[in-house]
């Protein structure tokens, strides 16, 4: 414990006895948008990252997911090669898809695609948040397969990042996803697709 006491002691020495409180200004609320425009903004911002957005009515999620998988995997795709988060409703799943059974995470790399829901989505930044709950699945699930399909329902969409944080559990393992995996490391130009899923399909219902 010596290092701990010493570092804390140094901080107290550096700061001294007098510690006037520092006022933190409040940040204005992000812009208010009617629900319809919120979804439009989310779709626009997600597409900006070169992800695919498929919009549908709430009752059409299953067929839209299938359409997205077909476009991403090509004709003749195998439903068994699609791994699904355990909390994803049956109506969204392609027939014959594999449910994540908690197998060793590295084995998930063998699947062609993953299907999950989300915890919330941020319109302003085009961000999906997965929270490790059954609907989102564990973190490795949305990481290893090369195609990620996420279903977002209208009520899950919030205007900006602070709204999303207010809805989330701070101690859950969260992953905020904004487009497919990318890098800007070569001449600071964005290139999509490095280690994470190279294809992101967002099914936006409502």
């Amino acid at each position: 414990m010596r290092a701990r006491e010493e570092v804390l002691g140094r901080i107290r020495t550096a700061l001294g006895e007098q510690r006037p409180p520092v006022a933190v200004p409040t940040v204005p609320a992000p812009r208010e948008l009617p629900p319809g425009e919120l979804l439009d903004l989310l779709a626009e911002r997600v597409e900006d990252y070169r992800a695919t957005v498929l919009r549908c009515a709430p009752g059409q999620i299953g067929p839209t997911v299938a359409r997205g998988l077909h476009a991403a995997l090509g004709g003749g795709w195998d439903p068994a090669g699609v791994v699904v988060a355990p909390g994803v409703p049956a109506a969204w799943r392609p027939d014959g898809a594999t449910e994540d059974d908690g197998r060793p995470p590295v084995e998930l790399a063998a699947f062609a695609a993953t299907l999950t829901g989300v915890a919330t989505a941020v319109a302003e930044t085009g961000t999906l948040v997965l929270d490790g709950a059954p609907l989102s699945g564990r973190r490795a699930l949305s990481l290893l397969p090369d195609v990620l399909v996420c279903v977002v329902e209208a009520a899950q969409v919030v205007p900006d990042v602070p709204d999303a944080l207010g809805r989330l559990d701070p101690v859950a393992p969260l992953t905020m996803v904004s487009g497919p995996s990318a890098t800007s490391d070569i001449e600071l130009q964005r290139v999509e697709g490095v280690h994470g899923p190279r294809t992101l399909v967002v099914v936006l219902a409502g």
Partner: protein
Amino acid sequence: MSASPLAPGAPRSGTTFLGLPTAPPGVGHLRGDRPFPDAARTALRDGQLRANLGRATTTIRGKRAAVVSEVPHWEQLRQAGKALKAATMARLDEHLEELERQVTARGGTVHWARDAAEANRIVTELVRATGSSEVVKVKSMATQEIGLNEALEAAGIEAVETDLAELIVQLGQDSPSHILVPAIHKNRSEIREIFSRTLPHLQGPGASPGLTDDPRQLAMAARAHLRERFLRARVAVSGANFAVAETGTLSVVESEGNGRMCLTLPQTLITVMGIEKVVPRWADLGVFLQLLPRSSTGERMNPYTSTWAGVTPGDGPQEFHLVLLDNGRTAVLADEVGREALHCIRCSACLNVCPVYERTGGHAYGSVYPGPIGAVLSPQLTGVEDNASLPYASSLCGACYDVCPVAIDIPSILVHLRAEHVEAQEKPTAEAVAFRGLARVMSSPRLWHLAQRAAGLGRLLARGRPTLPAALPPPASAWTRTRDLPTPPGRTFVQQWNEEHRS
């Protein structure tokens, strides 16, 4: 009058005025081999380097400006970020204790490291305890700062950098030159050359020939190289962008997914974090996660942000260690002016706009923290006398202050550190003598009048040109070598005024 904790002239090498130790020499990467002007001269002769930097910084400046202008309340966000950081520093001890409590309560183990050597020792022992002889690493400034890779290598542990730019630097046996993009000094064809020469799957018979310099192909080559390493890794080492005290939540902000691989797949995760990275509340991330990606890569949001608190059964590493690093930070904290440098969220916007950085590149600064923020941070971490040339590596144009997402007044800290360096000199510099003389002359009307007349003689040296020749004899050459001294006018302002108003 409140006494400044760091009186002018207080020794800043080794320990501070208050006896707070700075980052020790001999370990890590905070000190260069040469003073900045010497290193910069070498860099300036490299035309390829200047072309690469010019192209990259121009691209990123445009992207940043576009996404920042979308946010109508950007200035309020900046001020909130600044105030949050100041409020955090004012109670840093309490926030760290709370962070420790929360991380521990969620199954993590917290370690404290007084300096680089102690942090390296802690991490090495933790890796050894797992029995693994290799670790995968997420790009982290803190581990670069302490020279962790070298320490692990000395202990027989291979550290694999997984960030693309960091991998390029590691494979090229190079050193990082930018906070966000450590290989910014390399262009696509240089990267292609490094990959073709070093990546095992591109070597030998049967290797697929013809790697081009298309960035997409280069990124795919890195993916193929690292995929198997990720899947077999048992230990990962990361840094942290933020740590929330009230919840014990750590956060890593990244793009490629290499961070997620490291934070998710191995059994053991070791995170090394500077003590200044703590934020008090979960809601504070709402401010910083808006400021950081826009300032850093010029995106509304980076592709992946991960957060975790301790250990989650069935999801991710089941053993988590957090190493809290001082290494001179408390010495920075002791300086009421300089402590603002600890507010830095490592976005690198100040590097990208800096006219000095754009021309010299990052290596000239000699520290893992280059550019304007490095020029104020490195000398404070090591003690000013160990990085005495860095506070002068700036034209004080102020562009860094304008773009800083937490409004760090870098120019004022630079001037503060210059003053500290001058005060620390036992013998006055020629410049100090000259200015003292000037002060005397300017406070006497008679001397000032005489001096103005004498200055007219400078016109003889100029021989009709608008500026005086650069080759004045020393010590005046120290000033004129890098500055144009205008030719004195034929008549002074006072003479002109008198002539025009006499009638």
